[in-house]
């Protein structure tokens, strides 16, 4: 009798651990169809995807930080804002220089984070928080709390319009370029995580830092690279976000740190590290998009939406970590 019960529980646990987040996505799709017939229309689906592409870009990079067992990068929002502002500032030298400068900011912040956390083993949450303080303070100080506008800064060269169009550009007239960029990043980073030697080493580093170190893996380099990847995708996302909102300012990207953690963790990358995949993270991002869309279609106001989102977040992670524990695959 009791054996039967454990077996059934295990079957459910296996189901969760295999299908993971796409199980939740399927439930949301069914709910969505029941709520409104407009739900499955191409326009609505495109708006679901379009609404979370920037979050997706941030999340696929942030996944590496969580995968390496270092929780989260709280400097994501300021990295996004800083790269956006710097890109706008560099627009006077042309669109290529602007994008290049934006990426350079990401590179720089990623290198600092990676060095301090990878080499000196500073606590990731506290260090990235300090980093967020410093970059935000710098931004507000240098630009004295002003917003800067790409269409003004790039007016002389005409690059401003190109910059604003970055987010709005469509391939073949239908597929948004942001989605293509996200797909490229997701596929590329998926292979980096699962196929490259760096990815495999990072998995061991995340699962057990000490074991990885003792077996001769260059843990400092791996952890540093994880933070670098995170900052780079945050910089790309920041450039797109600035292009979308037509304004560069210190407050851009606020809230993307916790949103990215949500997507990454409900996507199956456990905080204990060394577990999860980019496929799951994309699923997590889609679930967030679907959830927002379904709730809006149901007429739930934004205030109540935050309550539901928070509850679903805790519940999803709770079920997932519980089933992993039941399968004996995780002690966290």
């Amino acid at each position, binding site marked *: 009798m009791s054996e039967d019960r454990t077996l059934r529980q295990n079957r459910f646990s296996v189901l969760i651990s295999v299908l993971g987040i796409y199980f939740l996505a399927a439930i949301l799709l069914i709910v969505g169809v029941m709520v409104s017939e407009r739900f499955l229309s191409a326009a609505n689906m495109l708006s679901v995807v379009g609404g979370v592409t920037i979050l997706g870009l941030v999340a696929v990079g942030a996944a590496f930080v969580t995968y390496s067992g270092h929780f989260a990068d709280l400097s994501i929002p300021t990295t996004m804002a800083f790269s956006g502002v710097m890109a706008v500032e560099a627009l006077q030298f042309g669109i290529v220089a602007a994008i290049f400068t934006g990426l350079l900011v990401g590179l720089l912040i990623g290198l600092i984070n990676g060095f301090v956390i990878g080499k000196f083993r500073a606590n990731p949450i506290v260090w990235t928080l300090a980093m967020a303080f410093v970059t935000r303070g710098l931004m507000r100080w240098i630009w004295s709390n002003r917003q800067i506008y790409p269409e003004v800064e790039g007016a002389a060269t005409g690059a401003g319009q190109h910059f604003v169009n970055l987010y709005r550009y469509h391939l073949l007239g239908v597929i948004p370029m942001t989605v293509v960029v996200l797909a490229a990043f997701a596929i590329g980073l998926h292979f980096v995580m699962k196929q490259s030697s760096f990815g495999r080493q990072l998995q061991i580093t995340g699962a057990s830092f000490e074991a990885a170190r003792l077996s001769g893996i260059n843990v400092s380099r791996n952890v540093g690279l994880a933070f670098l990847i995170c900052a780079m995708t945050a910089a790309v996302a920041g450039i797109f976000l600035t292009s979308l909102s037509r304004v560069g300012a210190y407050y851009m990207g606020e809230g993307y740190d916790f949103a990215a953690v949500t997507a990454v963790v409900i996507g199956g990358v456990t905080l204990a590290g060394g577990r999860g995949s980019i496929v799951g993270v994309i699923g997590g991002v889609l679930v967030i998009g679907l959830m927002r869309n379904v709730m809006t279609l149901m007429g739930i106001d934004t205030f109540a939406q935050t309550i539901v989102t928070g509850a679903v977040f*805790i519940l999803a992670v709770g079920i997932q970590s519980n089933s992993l524990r039941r399968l004996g695959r995780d002690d966290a």
Partner: protein
Amino acid sequence: MPSQTDVVTFVNRYRILLLLALVFLFMALFAPRFLNMFNMTIIMKSASLNAMAAIGFTIVLICGHLDLSVSSTISLGAVLVIGFRPDLGWSGAIVAAVAAGGVVGLVNGLLVAKARIHSFIVTIGTLTIVQGIIYVYTGGAALNVTGALDFALADFLEDPILLFFPPRVIITILVIVGFEVFFLRTKPGRNFYMVGGNRETAWLAGVKADAYVIWAFIISGCAAALSGALFAIGISSATTDLGVNSLMIIVAATIIGGASMNGGKGQVLYSGIAVLMLTVLFNGLNRFGVGSEFRILASGVILASVVLYEAYSNYKKERIRGQRPELLKELDPQQLKNVASSLKTRKLQE
């Protein structure tokens, strides 16, 4: 004559007091209109909000967990105390607000200790949930005290009765000192440190770790709600985002005050002093006429230096782990080289 290590230990132990003295001295000497009764009162008042909320964050951190929900719990306490005032009176409203904070803490604690979900996840979740509840309760607008008689308590709480200490500040200091004595001098208080510092020892000693974790979260919720409630009564109004900026300051202060993210370290009193230090810094910078952007930069630089200093000293310690410097010193360098080369040749032969 104190040796170099003695000085380092002294600085490490009283780091936060030295920092406070340093910042205060600098501001007293150079900041215009800094050193007067009125300004000291302002500093004490603005420090007391985050200082009391930092109690809870510190004790949760000592237990080895994180409580990111403090910021919305502060707002919750503020909003509820103003919202319940017409029905329950001040004392009833304060009790209700603190109880609501306690419920938030209890939920956090149960999810962390019993459902075994990571505290980082749980408290991000409850952070958004509580913020949502606040918005639903208030409709997004700020709540204000109405009726002339209701300002009497605010006047009492905010006017200095002793030097530059208004009752609200004195309450904060008493609560902090009370918890400090409880955590350091009593048996159940010290168990909190054991739970966070070494779970296995705690288990062997028969300490119920789960119960302590849950109590830590409850204390955190109550302290945050109480500080928000007292602040709201003091200014006779409550905004929905009162505590938004608090989280960053509390985290920074707790770490600067010597608590460790790994648990088992830290003191409630030192976290409170660190909040005071940051407030003195902010206030002094204000007197220089620089904007809030400089305050964020300054607190970021201080936090970054403290973290970097700790990480670097740990890194140096780690590098010599497993070595025995006192033995290596006895051998002469030539001998060491011989040992190394003989090891190498043996490896090659194998």
